[in-house]
């Protein structure tokens, strides 16, 4: 289908060229032929994918989402009339391989840009190479790394809000509706520490306090022994876990509390790609979750979300259409879809032709601000901060009711604002 369209375009332009054949070669020697070749060559987007390693459960959904997004872009005529091609390389969720993959994109595949990284240690491993190779590098990681100023001008995160903003937006809801004395349970690595630090600060601003911070080593597989550290006075448990043991964690937490649990507020990361009807999760009934994007289609579902689900092949419960037990990473993977659409818009604004225009592309995206709720941005409206290279958006707080997540509160974009920590636009390219 795409190819017929492409042929039509090139035929028309060929006709145009033929029309001006008498004049053009004389005036613009050599140029016409080159422009012709250039215009039909695909725009190559290097996709750094966690196909193996600990990120693989997310990776497969990032891959499906990105493929769907690119198919849609191509159906709509590609970018600047050129088709888009995803060049996929597995990084094994490893920072060393990640850097190698970025190098591969830039110097072997001759990709126009790099895209798609989720795990922040891979982002940290790869970002310096992207900067040195002057390859625009779009991450979909929700880490605070971009906005913290630690990276460089070639790294952007325009598709998903960072963890600092997410956490900060949650605090008022937790303090107003669930309780002021919070015990936090989080993995003992950087992502968990971000939650710990940013949430502690935010809840104190709401007049609450964190009464205990329980950091779980990332290799842990059983959790019951840590739960007694939860102080009795705790009103709310705030949990965020990642990795393969998340289900064990949530199950054991339920078993620990039995019938007398405090309020529980979790980041859906603790159950991303896990079926809520898994045995042992019944106790979650009535608890709350942050969701980056509501997994279950809501009563007021937008047409944009409908179209987005259909494009990837996801049902109203956030699972694969072909296998209802295959639950997606719905709260995060929209970032691939939206990032690709931002790239498209950026390239169109910049009149992007090839690697020589990379700087123009970054400048075009830095100039962006509002992103309307649309088929391009099915998760919701967003506001991009060109200085910090970070986007800000709505967050969803859902409650488990009869085994599904129903949105109870949507935060305003401003709830996640914080002071700029960097101005990348002041850095040289």
């Amino acid at each position, binding site marked *: 289908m795409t190819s017929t369209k492409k042929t039509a375009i090139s035929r028309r332009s060929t006709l145009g060229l033929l029309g001006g054949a008498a004049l053009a070669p004389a005036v613009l020697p050599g140029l016409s032929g080159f422009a012709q070749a250039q215009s039909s060559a695909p725009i190559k987007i290097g996709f750094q994918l966690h196909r193996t390693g600990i990120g693989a459960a997310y990776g497969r959904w990032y891959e499906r989402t990105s493929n769907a997004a690119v198919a849609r872009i191509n159906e709509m005529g590609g970018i600047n009339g050129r088709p888009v091609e995803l060049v996929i390389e597995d990084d094994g969720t490893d920072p060393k391989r990640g850097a190698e993959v970025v190098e591969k994109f830039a110097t072997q595949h001759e990709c126009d840009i790099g895209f798609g990284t989720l795990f922040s240690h891979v982002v940290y491993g790869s970002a310096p190479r992207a900067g040195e190779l002057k390859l625009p590098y779009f991450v979909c990681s929700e880490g605070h790394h971009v906005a913290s100023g630690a990276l460089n001008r070639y790294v952007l995160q325009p598709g998903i809000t960072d963890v600092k903003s997410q956490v900060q937006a949650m605090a008022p809801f937790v303090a107003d509706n669930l309780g002021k004395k919070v015990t936090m349970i989080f993995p003992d690595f950087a992502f968990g520490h971000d939650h710990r630090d940013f949430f502690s600060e935010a809840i104190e601003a709401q007049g609450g306090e964190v009464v205990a911070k329980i950091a*779980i080593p990332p*290799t842990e597989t059983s959790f019951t022994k840590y739960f007694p550290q939860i102080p009795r006075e705790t009103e709310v448990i705030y949990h965020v876990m990642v990795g393969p043991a998340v*289900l064990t964690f949530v199950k054991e937490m339920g078993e620990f509390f039995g019938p007398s649990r405090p309020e529980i507020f979790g980041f859906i990361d603790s159950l991303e790609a896990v079926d809520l009807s898994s045995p042992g999760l019944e106790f979650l009934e009535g608890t709350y979750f942050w969701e980056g994007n509501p997994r279950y289609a809501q009563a007021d579902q937008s047409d944009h979300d409908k179209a987005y689900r259909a494009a990837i092949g996801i049902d109203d419960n956030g699972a694969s259409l072909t296998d209802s037990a295959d639950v997606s990473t719905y709260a995060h993977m929209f970032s691939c879809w939206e990032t690709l659409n931002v790239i498209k818009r950026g390239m169109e604004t910049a009149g992007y032709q090839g690697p020589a225009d990379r700087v123009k592309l970054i400048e075009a995206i830095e100039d962006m601000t509002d992103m309307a709720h649309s088929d391009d941005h099915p998760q919701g409206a967003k506001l991009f901060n060109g200085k910090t290279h970070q986007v800000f958006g709505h967050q969803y707080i859902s409650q488990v009711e009869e085994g599904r997540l129903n949105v109870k509160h949507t935060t305003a974009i401003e709830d996640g604002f914080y002071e700029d920590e960097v101005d990348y636009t002041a850095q040289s390219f």
Partner: protein
Amino acid sequence: MEFGPHLMLAALEGAITAAILALTAVGLSLTFGVMRVVNVAHGEFFMLGAVAAWFISTTIGGHPAWGFIAAVVLAPLIIGLLAASADWLVLKRLDYDPERTIVATIGLLYIIQQGALIGFGPNAQPVEPPFSHRIALPWFEWTEAGFEMYYPWGLSTNSYKLFIIFAAAMLLLGLWLIMTRTKVGLVMRATQQDRDMATAFGIPVERIYALTFGLGAALAALGAVLIVPVQQAYYLMGHDPLLLSFIVVIIGGLGSLRGTVLAALLIGMSDGIISVFFSPTLAKIIATLLVAMVLVFRPQGLFGKGVH
């Protein structure tokens, strides 16, 4: 939570770790004792056991107990056969040279792991326990009114978790009976003591080796089948059991089954109990260094005679 109940809970959790660890490590110890080789792929057989349990129980469907029973029987059998054929195809051809075997089993580790990723996928998959009831546990307190029993907040366990401890103990007892009371056990012990002499007496050493390797893997798989209703099947789950089994086998004295079980208890329980006193990651570091120090100052292990 008060100190007493906290300690009790940690000890209970430690006992579960110890039970599974004992089964897994005894498997490793068996291959080491009889064959004098270190099987680095041991943790992958553990993982395959969990994956097989998931596969069997989802295929059978119905009440989870049926799937569980089928998995307990079939998973170790399948994994055991797989391991025995790996022995036949690879290790035998290396003539059980210790270093080459380590290299080959590291290779097997990657092959099995990536194979599982392709066949089973990257998601952690839950298996429903055959039964599961929350059991609140009582605690005693000395008050002015005398000795009092009460149910502290959060102090509880689960009937299936208790079953794990019981089942592992029974299985280890069974294994001990096999090793000491049956002809197969006798032959295996004979091979362990002196391979050449065993060959001279007409014992088919190669077949015994394949059997031992298979049995070792089957024990790991069995441990995984028992624990998977509490945890999940995941393609990278073999890493920790391998590391811990290694430690247990060395601390227990290489090749000594009794020592291995004792060491599993020690390591499993201390993993639980150290976590009461220190922050989790620090507890892990301390536990790891303790093990290293035990080995440094008692290289022959706590309960055994050294081989090197």
